């Protein structure tokens, strides 16, 4: 809402005027015990609905016609309008109750009126908050909620005590009214959030806002004065939201930091992951600027790393992709040499896959087959194949453990072409493990990309081949004899378990088939054949 959209703003002002009338009439009705005032309050709803619809229409037209990207600002208006309309419906319910009953004598008018007055003050703040250059007033709106909430809970407690002494219908009715006011305060909070979101250009809840504010003030930025511009950058599979934080004063929108917000458990793991990487292999992980927690939520502000992820590099020219991959390979070799342990760490690919089966079947129920029979030929079920392969897995020689990324997907690795440097992000699952864990995950994360252009598919195949060959080369130099077999198991695990992220049926099927093929293939070889095992490279093709 840095830019006012006069048409939309006009509808919002009409809506507000009528909503204030609706609330004022309700206040008068309670104060003067006047049934006509309730009627008057109820009569406003039609106008309010109209203004809301007109706002939505205008917002839609503006989005259609605007050349700039003002979507977030306009959505801010829509958000405010939706919250106001639900506030209006809540007022409507209260008026209905009070109109047909006579709970007023027990209503402890003074406190209820005070709460409603706070609500009214909140509404009065909306216009100045939208027109204002900073966020102070919007935050004030949000804070009114806490005040109303507190007054209402105290009141409800009193009613409860009275009700325990003696049951009275009036008391029940009064409790309902107070409860409704409590809900209305929550809606007011949403209004405030809508205004803040419109101003910041991204939807944000007040909790996150406060965390971001605290975090940024450590960096000497003041969010309320809008020295900062934040923009959404996506969501992770674990439900965290990621935003880019840029200085509003910079001529170019240079990103200063990444703000990640979500479940405390995930973010704490990530923070520990990053810090451990700083210890084990400095320079590969982003720097953490600040970490804030509150309840079961947390926020992390960390260094914005330049560079492109491998899913983007794939679309760039071949040379850049090749440089990126080879830079990655030499970085991995350094990391593995620097962190290698004497201890060998057995893989658990098959038990990981077993655990994923139910979520795979939830996405692709048709994958859940009990086994196949054609004449005399039989094919075991996936569960059975996994069990057989798990036995083979136990017999394999594990590699010496190295510190691995743990969630080594194409979009978690950054390559900076200019600096010729690799960085890792999303480090919440890093640990000491077999390097085939990371390599197999990376290969399949290439394969499962939703890129269907034959030229790109060919590059995907070559990238997978390159990763495999690099690993084979490392294995050879380090006398790791069972690399091919462990990779076959790791790839089978990733091909099958990643189908739960792939909704394209054909693509998902081809991954399942490849995974199954590997498991069937492995189940047929003898121990004597282990050391000559060759992974069928044809599998990297579509």
């Amino acid at each position, binding site marked *: 809402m840095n830019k006012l959209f006069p048409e939309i703003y006009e509808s919002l002002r009409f809506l507000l005027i009528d909503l204030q009338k609706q609330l004022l009439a309700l206040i008068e009705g309670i104060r003067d015990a006047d049934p006509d005032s309730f009627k008057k309050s109820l009569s406003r709803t039609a106008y309010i609905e109209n203004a809301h619809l007109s706002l939505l229409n205008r917002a839609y037209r503006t989005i259609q016609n605007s050349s700039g990207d003002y979507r977030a600002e306009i959505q801010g208006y829509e958000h405010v309008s939706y919250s106001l309309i639900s506030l209006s419906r809540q007022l409507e319910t209260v008026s209905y109750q009070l109109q047909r009953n006579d709970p007023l004598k027990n209503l402890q008018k003074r406190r209820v009126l005070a709460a409603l007055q706070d609500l009214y003050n909140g509404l009065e703040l909306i216009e100045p908050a939208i027109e204002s250059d900073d966020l102070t007033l919007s935050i004030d709106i949000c804070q009114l909620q806490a005040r109303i909430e507190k007054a209402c809970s105290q009141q409800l407690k009193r009613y409860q005590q009275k009700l325990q002494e003696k049951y009275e219908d009036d008391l029940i009715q009064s409790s309902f009214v107070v409860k409704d006011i409590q809900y209305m305060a929550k809606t007011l909070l949403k209004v405030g959030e809508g205004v803040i979101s419109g101003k910041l250009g991204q939807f944000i809840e007040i909790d996150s806002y406060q965390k971001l504010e605290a975090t940024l003030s450590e960096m000497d930025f003041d969010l309320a004065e809008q020295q900062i511009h934040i923009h959404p950058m996506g969501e992770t599979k674990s439900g965290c939201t990621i935003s880019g934080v840029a200085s509003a004063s910079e001529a170019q929108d240079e990103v200063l930091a990444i703000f990640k917000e979500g479940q405390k458990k995930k973010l704490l793991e990530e923070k520990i992951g990053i810090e451990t990487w700083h210890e084990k292999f400095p320079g590969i992980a982003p720097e953490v600027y600040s970490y804030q927690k509150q309840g079961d939520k947390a926020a992390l502000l960390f260094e914005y790393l330049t560079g492109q992820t491998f899913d983007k590099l794939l679309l760039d020219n071949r040379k850049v992709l090749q440089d990126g991959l080879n830079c990655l390979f030499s970085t991995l070799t350094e990391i593995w040499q620097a962190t290698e342990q004497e201890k060998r760490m057995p893989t658990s690919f098959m038990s990981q896959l077993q655990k994923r089966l139910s979520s795979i079947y939830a996405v692709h129920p048709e994958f859940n087959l009990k086994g196949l029979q054609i004449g005399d030929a039989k094919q075991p079920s996936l569960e059975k194949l996994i069990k057989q392969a798990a036995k083979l897995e136990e017999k394999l020689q594990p590699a010496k453990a190295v510190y691995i990324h743990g969630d080594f997907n194409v979009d978690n690795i950054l390559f900076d072409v200019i600096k010729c440097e690799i960085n890792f992000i999303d480090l919440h699952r890093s640990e000491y493990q077999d390097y085939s864990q990371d390599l197999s995950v990376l290969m399949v994360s290439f394969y499962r990309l939703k890129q269907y252009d034959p030229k790109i598919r060919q590059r995907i195949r*070559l990238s997978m*081949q*390159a*990763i495999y060959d690099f690993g084979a080369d490392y294995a050879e130099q380090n*006398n790791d004899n069972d690399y091919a077999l462990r990779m076959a198991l790791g790839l089978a695990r990733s091909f099958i378990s990643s189908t739960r992220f792939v909704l394209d049926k054909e693509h998902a099927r081809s991954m399942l*088939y490849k995974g199954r093929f590997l498991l069937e293939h492995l189940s047929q070889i003898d121990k004597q054949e282990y050391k000559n095992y060759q992974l*069928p490279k044809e599998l990297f093709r579509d």
Partner: protein
Amino acid sequence: MAKKTDYFEHESLQDRDAVVDYLQALAKAIQKGEILLSDGDEKLLLQPNDLTLMSLKASTTKKSQSLRIKLTWNQKNDDEPDKEPLFIKAKKPKKSS
């Protein structure tokens, strides 16, 4: 028949023994890695790959029953446009062990 050489189609009525003969001939050809299909005028030579997508479809109605077997594999393509490997082996002396 004016069929293109990249397409072949055949249909005929056979007894059980003949069907088995044909299927065995097909199995042998797949094993060998070369299936020759010809109707006299045109011929088509298929070279099955090691990795083959096998799909079976069977259906049954009051009137008839049918079984379709479809085998699909990638072409062995020696002249694909982009086939240079992306992994460049680091020129380091082998670790002596």
